[in-house]
């Protein structure tokens, strides 16, 4: 049996294969660090390892630090552990409890497909692709809470 970890971040719902979820932690302090890849500006520390925060809750445009109510889903990827910031209410659901839809062609590189469960559509994240895009460090793509691609300044200036 396979299962997904389902969580909410901002206005969107996401799913991650359970096999990739290492742990869910709460109340961790976030730390800023310089010179990180585009799209990442904070880390948390877990078992002496710096863990990049990929999805994060925002108040307006600002990250809320040290929130005791913040949950982080630690996932494994080819680039090491990553943390996905999530709102309370995360759950693990067996895949046969919902409807799995995998598109023949991905709308976005980091979305494998969609998992429909109790009337909600959860974007299934491809963590490795997401990390790979960020590791390029060119800022051309990063996943924000809106789930949208954020163009970097050069692309915006070029009007692409």
């Amino acid at each position, binding site marked *: 049996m396979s299962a997904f970890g389902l969580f909410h971040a901002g206005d969107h719902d996401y799913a991650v294969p359970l096999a990739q979820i290492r742990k869910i932690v709460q109340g961790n*302090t976030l*730390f*800023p*660090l*310089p*010179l*990180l*890849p585009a799209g*990442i500006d904070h*880390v948390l*520390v877990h078992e*002496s*390892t*710096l*863990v*990049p925060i990929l999805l994060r809750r925002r108040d307006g445009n600002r990250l809320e630090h040290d929130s005791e109510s913040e949950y982080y889903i630690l996932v494994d*990827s*080819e*680039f*090491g*552990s*990553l943390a996905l910031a999530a709102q309370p209410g995360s759950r693990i659901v067996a895949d046969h409890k919902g409807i799995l839809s995998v598109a023949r062609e991905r709308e976005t590189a980091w979305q494998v497909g969609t998992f429909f469960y109790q009337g909600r559509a959860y974007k299934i994240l491809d963590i490795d692709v997401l*990390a790979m895009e*960020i*590791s390029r*460090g060119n800022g051309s793509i990063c996943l924000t809470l809106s789930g949208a691609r954020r163009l970097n300044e050069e692309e915006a200036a070029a009007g692409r």
Partner: protein
Amino acid sequence: MVGAPGKRLIFTLAGIRFVLDLDHVVEVLEQLAGRLDSRRSDLRKGIVGALDFRHTVIPLIDPTLMLGLVSAAHIFQRSVLVLCGSEGNWAVLVDRVEGLAPADSFRRAIIPPLFQSAPGFAGAEVVLAEDAPLMVFEPERFYGINRDLP
């Protein structure tokens, strides 16, 4: 302060904590007013001016320029670390000096592969003190003939 091995100096820049081997530190200056000649700046090299120190003039580096950080503190509210280098003394602007700590009170943080491949972060060292990360400040990245810009 040279000659006090086994200790590290902790300082902050733009809300980020850094740690520096005390062996590099000549003196900590809390007052910058009256010592700085900003006409002799070279911002491309991170030099914000010339600092009058013990009757000599030495370059004053602001690391935030190379680290992509923004300090909230006014320049005259910031502190200065005078460091010894292969080309003589030079100085670095910091926001605040937190104090000293024994070198063995830090342990090395594990850097994830995602960061190791980031151009600016590659080669950087991070240590942990009570599970809080501190960037290891490497002077040669900021000034001197062996300067290796992040």
